[in-house]
């Protein structure tokens, strides 16, 4: 007799070799709790290609196909096609790829799978840089961030352009369901995965996954940072469900400074630069609110 707010069953084992406080492992844990054991996962080159440990170690209680960096969209399409041909339309096929493997090198393959309408779930665990190779910038790295390839230096070359929004690219594909999730809101996370499971066709889930190693933050603060990302509206939680935007929560706004401050990757930012990020964040939030209003009126 214990009332848990998320399923008790575990499909991820202890003893994996992720860094301390890894958000991507929490993401996988919740994902599989929601999906259950009738799932096949495909993982490209990314942190998660290493996290299960070296051969013969495995850390998932479901079958896993490792694949090349840019192939997740095609890989899950292939698994789905084979299962369907074998008469198995029940098993959930899920791709689990990092932001580099999704926003950059794997974008084409993902776009193809979504455009074709493959009945799969694609999870982008977004730790906002190439963390497995040592913190290089990806197109999902936010503006102002330090990475090893946006090292600042005397020319102050941090990441200049804002984070590419993959979820909005997915929405532009006329996808039936897309959502943003993060590890600090497990109940919301699981609810969205369950919703995705109900829908036949491609589903896209973008999970903000704090990376203490790459974000230069305290591992203990990983979940807290994810919470601050939502509260500061830097990473709003929302769904796009059959045309309608739905913002999952509209918490009292926390200044972006509170989110940026605990992260070493933003240490160099000046007050002025933080103000610019605040303005951009507020604008994006207004746009999101407008989309929610517009689409809900349109598809009343």
């Amino acid at each position, binding site marked *: 007799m214990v009332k848990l707010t998320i399923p008790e069953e575990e499909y991820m084992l202890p003893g994996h070799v992720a860094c301390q406080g890894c958000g991507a492992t929490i993401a996988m844990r919740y994902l599989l709790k929601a999906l259950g054991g009738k799932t096949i996962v495909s993982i490209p080159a990314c942190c998660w290609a290493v996290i299960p440990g070296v051969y013969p170690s*495995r850390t*998932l209680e479901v079958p896993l196909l490792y694949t090349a960096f840019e192939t997740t969209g095609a890989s899950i399409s292939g698994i789905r096609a084979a299962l369907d041909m074998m008469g198995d339309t029940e098993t959930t096929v899920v791709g689990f790829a990092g932001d580099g493997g999704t926003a950059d090198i794997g974008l084409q393959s993902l776009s193809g799978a979504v455009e074709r309408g493959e009945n799969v779930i694609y999870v982008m665990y977004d730790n906002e840089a190439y963390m497995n190779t040592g913190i290089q910038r990806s197109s999902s790295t936010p503006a102002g961030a330090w990475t090893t390839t946006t090292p600042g230096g005397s020319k102050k070359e941090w990441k200049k352009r804002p984070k590419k929004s993959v979820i909005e690219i997915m929405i532009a594909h006329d996808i039936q369901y897309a959502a943003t999730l993060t590890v600090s809101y497990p109940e919301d996370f699981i609810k969205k995965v369950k919703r995705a499971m109900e829908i036949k066709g491609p589903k896209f889930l973008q999970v903000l996954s704090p990376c203490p190693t790459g974000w230069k933050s305290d591992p203990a603060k990983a979940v807290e940072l994810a919470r601050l990302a939502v509260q500061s509206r830097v990473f709003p939680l929302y769904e796009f469900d059959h045309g309608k935007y739905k913002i999952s929560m509209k918490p009292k706004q926390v200044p972006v400074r509170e989110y940026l401050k605990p992260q070493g990757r933003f240490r160099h930012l000046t007050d002025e630069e933080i103000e610019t990020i605040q303005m951009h964040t507020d604008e994006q939030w207004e746009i999101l609110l407008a989309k929610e209003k517009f689409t809900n009126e349109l598809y009343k």
Partner: protein
Amino acid sequence: MVKKVITGNGASANGARLAKPKVIAAYPITPQTSIIEKLALMVSNGELDAKFIKVESEHSAMAACIAAQNTGVRTYTASSSHGLALMHELLMWASGARLPIVMTDVNRAMGPPWSIWADQQDTIAQRDTGWIQFYVASNQEALDTIILAYKVAETVNLPAMSIEDAFILSHTMESVDIPEQETVDSFLPPYEPKFRLKVGEPMGFGSLVMPEGYMEFRYKISEAMDEARNVIRTVGKEFGETFGRKYGLVEEYKTDDAEVVLVIAGSVASTAMEVVDMMRDEGKKAGVLRIRSFRPFPYEEIRKVAKQAGLIGVFDRSYTGGFGGAIGTEVKGALYNSDASLPVKNYIAGLGGRDITPKVLRKIFEDMFESLNGGVKKEVEWVGLRDGSGRW
């Protein structure tokens, strides 16, 4: 059995249909397109019970085949030239993952300069990917090789490629025996994967391996490739018993008493055989050894022919950039530690679809006889080069 006049691509599409792949993933490229158009129609008509994934690139085509095959079904794809080059990473993956995927490549030159015409550069460049490579010489062989390739691939758990020449075969009509489905089924039983992704069996396929474990997995690929050499011979014989057309690693033509033998792959071999007949009419003992299986390499067959020949010429329709053509260096490599001691001369010809006429081949044979008597003056020679010398 039905006899039909069809193109090489039609033959390949029929070969694929008869092998009953459950998943096809392909992307169009000239001159492969008519293969996948035909398959798309067969799937749409219900003639072939398969899912055709119309992917957005060749890279994704092979990635989808890998995933589907690893899930437990037979898969097929086809490509050509730049498409095959784009697949390169996944070709490596397919063999490393030990998946018996079968594909057709329509041999086409690489750019630049842009060219859609035949040469073997695209597939030769994939020599080291761990794929079995069959070079076919007729439309009949294109059809047969796909069926045969599945059987070989599934026996040794390596992927296999059937390779036909652009236009010369792909878009040219020939009379082809199309076997009955029942006969094919008796020869090629349904696919039984040795391992697969299966709910309830948590395993990670293709995981990270440390240096102390890596080499052994590569060694197993090498063992399988060596095993494939015998499997191709056995399955080729069995194919002959079932369908009346026997295939080996090579096809020998009048090599028994030949003084000079031209080693050659692809459809141009049939022209070379005609030229051999012409030479023989003039009392010149020439022969042809057509390489059907380039990977695994038929070194034993080459050594056997080399034992009695006086000179070997190797015809390469590609260039490796450094020292002649790949088949040329491979033939020399096969002979070095053998009993044979004879000169080998490498001819580079027919790049980018340059016509290889009987006249060109005749000059090559004549040059081989000259070299046999007067010594090899130039180890690697570009045939038909418009360099103003008028040599060819």
